[in-house]
């Protein structure tokens, strides 16, 4: 037996899925968080049944890919399969439109009236018994976020029924209106000043300044939290880790193992960025230099997501995004990508057409550095003041824009207009927010550490075997002549295939000039995605489109590096 969770986008199907199966999934306040279906298992009485989180749909007459997927799954339902139709109690009108389409499919179902905890707050009263009587299907008021009513829902799943409600499908919305009149009473609710401001955040005159303010505060909060945590981690390292490492260093004495584990130690002090050992640089970079900013970034992003601000941002800048061939919704993958390109690329599936998906994925993986890399660039280039940082990010922005303009012009395919519902603001549910933050931080640690350690290990290997010199000689026409970097910078580019953050760290011992730092930071961002991003690009775009993407990246890094090298000389 299988249970399908079906409902409009953004009604909390994934929250319910997570509740019922215990599987952690990412939940946000915008439509399309679930882009492909997720499967899990749950207990129903003494049976273990399969639960499927189907992407959200507005209609069963497919107009998007997600809707096609959902319809196909409905049509392939087996004899004892059932549907749990998740409805938004605070927006029953919209939900019932889909309910009636499901009724016509003649499948056994149960309705989960989700977001029940907010019904009262919104000033609505719903007569659940009457709704059950009209439709002939069990209905359970629940709050997937708080867990309220879940047990009753599971009980009612055993009584899933076909509806006996009969109506003319052409007059679907009229029927919805009639049902609403019988089951729902709407109390009077005052429009507070806050309501008006909230409404206006999507209107240009007030919305644009607010958007600017939101982005600026986001940036400063990330910086403040990140910096504070870095200092804290530095303190921890100095107090607890350094003595331990020094003791290991003494015990090992000189030798290959010492080089690999500890690296360079001078006068009983450790330069964690330059020592290049697994226990020094390999541990310090992820935990002390990068993790604080990754955490701070996800804190702010998760908050913006759960409040429901991102779709408004998408709508506000849709016009500008279309000018460079993107879509307002591209802003969501781009922002996720600024955290880590991997989830960023995965989320490009919320875009409707292949062209927009490809463009968003390519522009992100070429010119949007992840937080880990940004943190390292800030540390390295930031020391020289704002001019260096400004040059790096301005260059990346120009590359980003020009890739967009080029692809818009020359890539065949459609760029459909925006057409979306703007979800209501919600007060973030703190336990869920913490859970999401914990998951994302954990994923970062899980995905970053192995590559990072491998990177540091490889550097040691390359140095020990003298392979670096060979590589440096081969690559010097590009690295030295074209980009004006010392040939040893090749090691940074090699590591960059694995992890961009260590790669930037590898530049530290080279004592580069500010111009060289700018060029190296830009080139490291552009030339190739890190291993994890590359894998996900292949999976999302397919091999052919990934090859195209890589050609774009390589040509841009060659050209941009050379151009910067020429321009910066005159400054």
């Amino acid at each position, binding site marked *: 037996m299988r249970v399908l969770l079906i409902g409009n986008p953004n009604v909390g199907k994934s929250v319910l899925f997570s509740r019922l199966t215990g599987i952690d999934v990412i939940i946000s306040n915008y439509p399309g968080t679930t882009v492909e279906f997720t499967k899990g298992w749950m207990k129903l009485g003494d049976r273990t049944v399969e639960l499927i989180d189907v992407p959200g749909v507005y209609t069963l007459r497919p107009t998007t890919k997600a809707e096609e997927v959902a319809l196909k799954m409905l049509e392939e339902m087996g004899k004892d399969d059932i549907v749990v139709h998740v409805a938004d109690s605070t927006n029953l009108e919209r939900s019932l439109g889909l309910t009636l389409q499901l009724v016509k499919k003649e499948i056994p179902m149960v309705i989960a009236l989700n977001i029940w905890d907010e019904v009262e707050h919104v000033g609505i009263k719903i007569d659940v018994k009457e709704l059950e009587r009209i439709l002939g299907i069990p209905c359970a008021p629940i709050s997937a976020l708080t867990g309220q009513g879940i047990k009753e829902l599971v009980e009612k799943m055993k009584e899933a029924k076909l509806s006996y409600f009969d109506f003319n499908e052409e007059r679907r919305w009229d029927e919805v209106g009639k049902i609403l009149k019988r089951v729902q009473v709407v109390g009077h609710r005052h429009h507070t000043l806050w309501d008006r401001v909230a409404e206006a955040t999507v209107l*240009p005159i007030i919305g644009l300044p607010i958007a600017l303010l939101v982005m600026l505060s986001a940036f400063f909060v990330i910086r403040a939290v990140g910096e504070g945590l870095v200092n804290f981690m530095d303190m921890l390292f100095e107090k607890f880790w350094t003595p331990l490492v020094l003791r290991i260093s003494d015990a090992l004495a000189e030798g290959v193992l010492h080089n690999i584990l500890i690296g360079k130690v001078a006068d009983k002090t450790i330069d964690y960025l330059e020592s290049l050992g697994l226990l020094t640089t390999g541990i310090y970079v992820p935990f002390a230099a990068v993790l604080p900013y990754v955490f701070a970034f996800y804190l702010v992003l998760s908050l913006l997501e759960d409040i429901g601000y991102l779709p408004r941002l998408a709508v506000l800048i849709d016009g500008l995004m279309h000018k460079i061939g993107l879509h*307002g919704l591209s802003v969501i993958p781009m922002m996720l990508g600024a955290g880590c390109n991997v989830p960023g690329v995965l989320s490009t599936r919320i875009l409707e057409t292949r062209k927009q998906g490809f463009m968003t994925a390519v522009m992100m993986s070429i010119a949007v550095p992840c937080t880990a890399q940004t943190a390292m660039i800030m540390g390295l280039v930031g020391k020289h003041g704002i001019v260096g940082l400004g040059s790096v990010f301005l260059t990346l922005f120009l590359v980003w824009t020009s890739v967009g303009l080029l692809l818009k012009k020359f890539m065949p395919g459609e760029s459909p*207009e*925006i*057409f*979306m519902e*703007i979800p209501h603001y919600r007060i973030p549910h703190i336990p869920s927010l913490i859970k999401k933050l914990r998951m994302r931080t954990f994923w970062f640690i899980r995905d970053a550490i192995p590559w990072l350690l491998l990177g540091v290990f490889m550097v040691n290997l390359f140095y020990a075997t003298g392979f670096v010199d060979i590589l440096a000689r081969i690559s010097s026409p590009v690295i030295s002549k074209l980009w004006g970097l010392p040939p040893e910078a090749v090691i940074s580019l090699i590591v960059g295939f694995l992890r961009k953050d260590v790669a930037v760290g590898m530049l530290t011992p080279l004592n580069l000039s500010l111009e060289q730092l700018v060029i190296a930071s830009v080139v490291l961002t552009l030339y190739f995605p890190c291993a994890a991003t590359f894998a996900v690009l292949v999976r999302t775009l397919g091999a052919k489109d990934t090859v195209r993407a890589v050609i774009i990246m390589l040509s841009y890094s060659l050209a941009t590096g050379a151009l910067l090298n020429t321009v910066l000389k005159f400054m």
Partner: protein
Amino acid sequence: MDLGEEGAVVRLVGGRGFITKLDAMRIRIGTKLRKLGGEPFGGPIIVEVEGINKEQIAIGHGMADRIIVEVK
């Protein structure tokens, strides 16, 4: 239709796909809409659909041009 004006949809110019798409958002002939604003740089138009929840929907210009509304 001007900012803040309200009106009812009288005609939808487009094929089945277009009509289905709008129908999914509860926009069909007879639906009352209120225009809240238009985004800059050729961005979408924001309308509020009649109903209890006053949902806001962003509609691109090309689509919006094909939704004919009679202003009250």
